[in-house]
């Protein structure tokens, strides 16, 4: 918030050293979406403990995957004892959305001299929250400020949530079962509401509804590859609805 207030097009980036933009990115963490993400990761920590994962596994997974929907798919597969190849396929399918997200944020972020290696490293931070915040704030900043700002913001967001996921994991063991259930419940509620709010196109909305219905169905019919089948069948059906609606 602090960064947004003091950074307009009129400010000459050359006058503000890069590390000041890193600091503004760190301060940018104080806003609503990161707070909601922290509560979701507290919930994920509780969920991971319910699944039987160790604290180290949970923290490592959060840092390395850094995409809550994919992490939920991953621990869903872990809970079911799914083989590594089928797990990887399901996680990769759930993460395809990172491709268009990365592709749409990069033109905003890169300057003429930004190295591709640096962008590769920073791209790891791209997930829903960082993406939404970057799309909202970066256009109002001088171009030279955007990479340092995003680096400060993304690093802080990841570190904060490594703490959140640990706190959720440890809390789940210490609180009464009602509260532990409430913590684990944060994840599906958070995703259902935010996915429905983000669904702009007919295709997105249909995919959400079809996926909600077919997920449990495939779980009963084809437990080993249920996630993949849900994604492929419901996603393709949603796309066909989108084509059909547009074609009329």
């Amino acid at each position, binding site marked *: 918030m602090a960064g947004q207030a003091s950074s307009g097009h009129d400010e000459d980036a050359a006058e503000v050293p890069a590390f000041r933009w890193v600091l503004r990115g760190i301060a940018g963490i104080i806003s*609503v979406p990161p707070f*909601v993400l922290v509560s979701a990761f507290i919930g994920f920590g*509780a*969920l991971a*403990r319910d*699944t039987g*994962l160790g604290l180290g*596994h949970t923290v490592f997974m959060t840092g*390395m*995957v850094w995409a809550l929907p*994919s992490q*939920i*798919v*991953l621990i*869903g597969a*872990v809970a079911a004892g799914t083989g*590594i*190849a089928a797990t*990887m*396929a*399901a*996680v990769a399918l*759930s993460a*395809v959305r990172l*491709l*268009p*997200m*990365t592709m749409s944020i*990069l*033109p905003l972020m890169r300057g003429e001299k930004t190295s*591709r290696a640096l962008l590769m490293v920073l*791209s*790891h931070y791209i997930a829903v929250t960082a993406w939404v915040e970057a799309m909202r704030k970066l256009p109002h900043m001088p171009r030279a400020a955007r990479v340092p700002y995003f680096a400060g913001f993304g690093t802080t967001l990841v570190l904060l949530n490594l703490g959140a996921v640990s706190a959720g994991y440890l809390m789940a063991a210490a609180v009464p079962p*009602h*509260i*532990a*259930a*409430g913590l*684990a419940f944060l*994840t*599906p*509620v*958070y995703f259902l*509401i935010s996915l*429905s709010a983000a669904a702009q196109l007919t295709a*997105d909305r*249909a*995919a959400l*509804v*079809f996926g*909600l219905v077919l*997920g*449990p169905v*495939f*779980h009963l019919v084809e437990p080993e590859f249920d996630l993949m089948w*849900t*994604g*492929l069948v419901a*996603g393709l059906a949603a*796309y066909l609805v989108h084509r059909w609606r547009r074609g009329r």
Partner: protein
Amino acid sequence: MNESFWSIATPWWPYLFILIAGWAATDVWRFVGVMLSDRLTEDSEALILVRSIATALVAGVISKLVIFPGGALVGAPLALRLAAVAAGMGFFWGVRRNLFLGILVAEVVLIGGWLFI
């Protein structure tokens, strides 16, 4: 390649499992996104299809978490879990489009309803 997270009893295997099935499977898209960022547009047909598949997959996981949960959530009746989700969604879309309040409503219905039963 049929080994699961649990099937090799060494401390390092779960971490390798996470690296292969988790990290590689997600960062590959980010890296490809960086490589392709100056070629495709976000509203191209291929990307709409790809996003539909991703959305449906996550939606399937969400409803599985609500309908077939593990751990502590099993103790709450299915009808209560569904009512809590419906209350959160209903509040968000019907009363105020505030994500935090929507989640709060769902949690109050779940925990409050459970204590009331």
